[in-house]
């Protein structure tokens, strides 16, 4: 029901204010932080442009937003000192302060003062100045928040202040500098729009040109305003020095500029960017964003003044009282209309005694939308803008107060062992405390506060600005100089302002107004600082090095001054030293390791060489052994050959007799038998004596058996002759020279020699030898050697077959008889081949590889020398230039293949 009674303006206001507040709360929640770097300096990674915008948000306060246009409007030309004073300071910040403070890279302004002047006293003075400046400033902001909320949300001012405290508290306590930064960016956006939209509207309405700056310069509004001023007896709107003397104007402008450059909540913003470059540029961007508002303000001021005067001046008071907004603003006592001369018309005059229209500058900006009858939503937007300006500045100030106490007092001066969490916690508590204090001051504003906002600038100008700039640009400035300079400058400025404002002190210093005295205080501070510094000892080398470092290019932060090392930082320093020692140690260790490694490599190389030598020696030894073995073997064979040849020869002669005479013996035997038979035929009845004899010798048996015996003897002698021939054949191995021989003869004789092993035995039937001879030509070879090879292979084959027979019964073997196949063939015109295959168990893979190695044998000790195959291989490959290969399949048998050239000469 209550909502229905709201006017359109109030509904729009509620919408804009709630929406913008919601936006800030969301941003505040999004950028909540945990560590102190984020809490105090937003992690030092705020983008350049964002920092510029946040600085503008930080800077433009509720007072600026609400009163700036009003003040300029009242002061005319002389209002320029505020326009220039509050922008020109950024040139000083960009050129003299921001980059160096960023490079210094700590957290607060007292950090810099304390380090640069190597003194806890200096730090404390800075902390006190910081808190004083910010408290004065923030009180006005909280009051502004209260007024706006009360004006637009229809609550009383105190409730407005309370709401403001809760809002600012939320994102400051939660988000610290990070939260504040991003809400300030948003707040700048809101109040910039809120400022520009009515400005554009009024500009368009009065001049037809929407851009206020252009309309201001090109339209005739200012001319007309000048004319009205002249008619009413005022000085021209554009005429200088109507309110201040040139000196006063200059000094006020300078105070504002220098004060701006010394305001802690502004300069700490430059701790939050990445580097010096970003600090310089973000100061530029801050100025751009501020200038957008501040160049619009004088246009609004002129237009508003023109509108107000033409609406109110010389109008019947009764008619004016009918205007809705007049009533509303009259109720707030910001607008006072009194018909002093009782003529029923309102008159604006320069003389307060006769002036009948009295408007508070604060009312102008807020009243513009209504005065110029702009759409109701614009009024709502302006309210949201004013609130944004107040909240953003209040938050920035709160953080400085909080960090001054949490960081500078608690951490640096009281508990240097405080942990990260403790520092952030204390920071948050301090934001709360500062909020409570400023809230209290907002609800119960002490009378002087409103009047001494100028005091904040004077204080900043006469304390921080000289201390910071001289600290960077004058290396000789020392602790004594800076402290006495700050004290003298501040006391002078503070004394002058307080004296003039509260105790009716005459403006004894060249009639300078209290607003401008900060510049004088600054000058005094500088003179005292420089003088005292020159009279006392120069700053210690470490401090001079700090200054030198700040002046050098590059963003590397300088080392802190020793006396300010907290316990934590001392530990860090020691840690760093230990680390570097560690590093050195690591390097040494590495070097040693490298040396050791080199040594190891050398040793390894040596070992390798020894190994190589050893292998060579072993090779030589084995060569020697095989050579020796061969020699022995050859000797043996040749001896054996001689022996066999001798025996063969010796046996050959007697066997020749036997064999030669056996034929005759057979003939004689047959003759004798025939003769006996003839006897028996002719004399069937021999005498008894003969009969008895015949009976006793069993003549009939002799007759039948004798031919058989003789045949058998014939067989035996033939066999002896064959064996002897074979022996002679075989024994030709000693004949080293190559002769064209019939290989088949050699094979046959070898088989014959092995006959005793091939024939049937107890455990097995005879081994079947299949001779598959091709049509071979005579082959030039060393017959003896070749026979030896064939003998070797055949003997191995028999061994293999016998191995395979193990565990088999006689019948088993009969079913699958042992076979040796000897196959000879001609490969081509040059080569012949002898293949000897058995159907034994085959040679295992592992043995195959070593079968040609000297001394390798699978036979029991004493049974084989292990030289057979090795020598055979040498005989075939080296002696005959041929090839010896074998193929073996487990379970199916082995086949040795000898290939030799037919003509040795052809090859050699």
């Amino acid at each position, binding site marked *: 029901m209550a909502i229905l009674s709201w006017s359109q303006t109030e509904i729009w206001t509620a919408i804009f204010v709630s929406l913008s507040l919601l936006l800030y709360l969301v941003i505040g929640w999004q950028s909540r932080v945990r560590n102190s770097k984020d809490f105090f300096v937003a992690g030092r990674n705020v983008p350049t442009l964002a920092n510029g915008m946040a600085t503008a948000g930080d800077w433009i306060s509720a007072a600026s937003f609400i009163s700036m246009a009003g003040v300029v409007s009242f002061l005319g030309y002389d209002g320029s000192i505020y326009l220039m004073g509050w922008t020109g300071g950024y040139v000083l910040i*960009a050129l003299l302060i921001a980059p160096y403070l960023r490079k210094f890279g700590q957290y607060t302004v007292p950090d810099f003062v304390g380090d640069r002047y190597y003194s806890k006293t200096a730090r404390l003075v800075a902390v006190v100045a910081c808190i004083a400046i910010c408290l004065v400033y923030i009180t006005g902001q909280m009051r502004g928040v209260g007024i706006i909320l009360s004006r637009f949300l229809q609550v009383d001012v105190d409730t407005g202040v309370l709401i403001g405290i809760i809002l600012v508290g939320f994102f400051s306590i939660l988000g610290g500098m990070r939260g504040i930064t991003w809400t300030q960016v948003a707040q700048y956006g809101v109040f910039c729009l809120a400022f520009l939209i009515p400005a554009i509207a009024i500009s368009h309405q009065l001049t037809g040109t929407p851009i206020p700056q252009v309309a201001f310069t090109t339209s005739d509004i200012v001319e007309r305003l000048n004319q009205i001023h002249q008619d009413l007896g005022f000085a021209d709107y554009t005429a200088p020095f109507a309110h201040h003397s040139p000196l006063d104007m200059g000094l006020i402008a300078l105070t504002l500029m220098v004060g701006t450059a010394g305001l802690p909540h502004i300069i700490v913003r430059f701790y939050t960017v990445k580097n010096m470059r970003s600090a310089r540029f973000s100061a530029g961007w801050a100025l751009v964003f501020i200038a957008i508002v501040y160049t619009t303000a004088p246009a609004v001021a002129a237009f508003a003044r023109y509108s107000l005067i033409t609406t109110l001046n010389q109008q019947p008071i009764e008619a004016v009282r009918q205007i809705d907004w007049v009533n509303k603003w009259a109720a707030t006592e910001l607008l006072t209309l009194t018909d002093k001369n009782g003529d029923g018309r309102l008159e604006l005059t320069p003389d307060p005694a006769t002036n009948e229209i009295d408007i508070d500058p604060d009312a102008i900006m807020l009243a513009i939308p209504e005065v110029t009858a702009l759409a109701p939503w614009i009024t709502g937007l302006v309210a949201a803008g004013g609130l944004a300006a107040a909240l953003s500045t209040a938050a920035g100030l709160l953080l400085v107060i909080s960090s001054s106490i949490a960081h500078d007092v608690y951490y640096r001066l009281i508990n240097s062992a405080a942990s990260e969490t403790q520092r952030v916690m204390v920071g948050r508590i301090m934001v709360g405390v500062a909020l409570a204090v400023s809230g209290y001051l907002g609800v119960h504003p002490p009378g002087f506060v409103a009047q001494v906002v100028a005091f904040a600038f004077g204080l900043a100008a006469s304390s921080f600005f000289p201390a910071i700039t001289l600290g960077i640009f004058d290396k000789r400035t020392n602790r004594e100089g800076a402290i006495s300079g700050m004290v003298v400058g501040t006391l002078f400025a503070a004394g002058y302002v307080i004296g003039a404002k509260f105790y009716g002190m005459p403006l004894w210093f060249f009639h300078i107004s209290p607003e401008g005295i900060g510049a004088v205080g600054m000058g005094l501070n500088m003179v005292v600082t420089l003088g005292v510094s020159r009279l006392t000892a120069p700053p210690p080398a470490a401090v001079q090095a700090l200054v030198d470092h700040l002046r050098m290019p590059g963003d590397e932060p300088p080392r802190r001054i020793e006396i300010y090392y907290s316990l934590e930082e001392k530990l860090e320093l020691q840690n760093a030293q230990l680390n570097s020692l560690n590093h050195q140690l690591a390097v040494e260790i590495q070097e040693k390791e490298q040396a050791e490694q080199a040594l190891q490599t050398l040793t390894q190389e040596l070992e390798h060489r020894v190994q190589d030598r050893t292998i060579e020696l072993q090779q030589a030894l084995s060569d020697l052994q095989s050579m020796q073995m061969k020699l022995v073997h050859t000797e043996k064979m040749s001896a054996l050959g001689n022996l066999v040849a001798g025996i063969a020869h010796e046996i050959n002669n007697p066997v020749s007799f036997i064999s030669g005479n056996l034929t005759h013996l057979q003939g004689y035997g047959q003759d004798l038998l025939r003769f006996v038979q003839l006897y028996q035929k002719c004399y069937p009845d021999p005498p008894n004596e003969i009969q008895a004899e015949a009976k006793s010798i069993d003549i009939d048996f002799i007759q039948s058996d004798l031919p058989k015996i003789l045949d058998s003897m014939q067989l035996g002698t033939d066999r002896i002759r064959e064996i002897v021939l074979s022996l002679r054949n075989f024994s030709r191995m000693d004949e080293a020279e190559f002769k064209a021989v019939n290989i088949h003869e050699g094979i046959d004789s070898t088989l014959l020699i092995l006959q005793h092993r091939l024939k049937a035995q107890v455990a097995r039937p005879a081994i079947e030898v299949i001779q598959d001879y091709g049509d071979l030509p005579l082959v030039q070879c060393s017959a003896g050697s070749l026979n030896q090879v064939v003998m070797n292979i055949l003997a191995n084959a028999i061994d293999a077959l016998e191995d395979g027979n193990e565990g088999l019964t006689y019948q088993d073997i009969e079913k699958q008889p042992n076979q040796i196949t000897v196959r000879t063939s001609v490969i081509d015109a040059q080569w012949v081949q002898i293949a000897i295959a058995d159907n034994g168990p085959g040679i295992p893979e592992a043995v195959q590889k070593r079968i040609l190695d000297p001394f390798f044998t699978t036979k029991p000790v004493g049974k084989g020398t292990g030289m057979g195959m090795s020598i055979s291989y040498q005989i075939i490959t080296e002696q005959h230039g041929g090839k010896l290969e074998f193929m073996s399949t487990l379970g199916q048998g082995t086949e040795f293949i000898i290939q030799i050239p037919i003509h040795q000469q052809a090859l050699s």
Partner: protein
Amino acid sequence: MHQNKSQRYWQDNLALIRNLLLIWAATTFGMAIALAKFLNHIYLGRLPLGFWIAQQGALLVFVVLTFVYASRMEALDRKCDSKHSKNDENN
């Protein structure tokens, strides 16, 4: 050598600051205050020049000054950087 480079950088920086602050002071205290009456006889558009400078022009000059400083220092930094690296190469 390195010492000289840093000193040179600082001297260049100081000279730049001095020049820009001279313009800054001349604008604020010279044109907008001391010469205001004189300049007000000249018009820019339909505004007296002194008045225009004090309420508009000076602000624009300030903006330009900060950006000139920032970009000149950036150039100086870069120059210094490249000199440093050249030195390093020579070493």
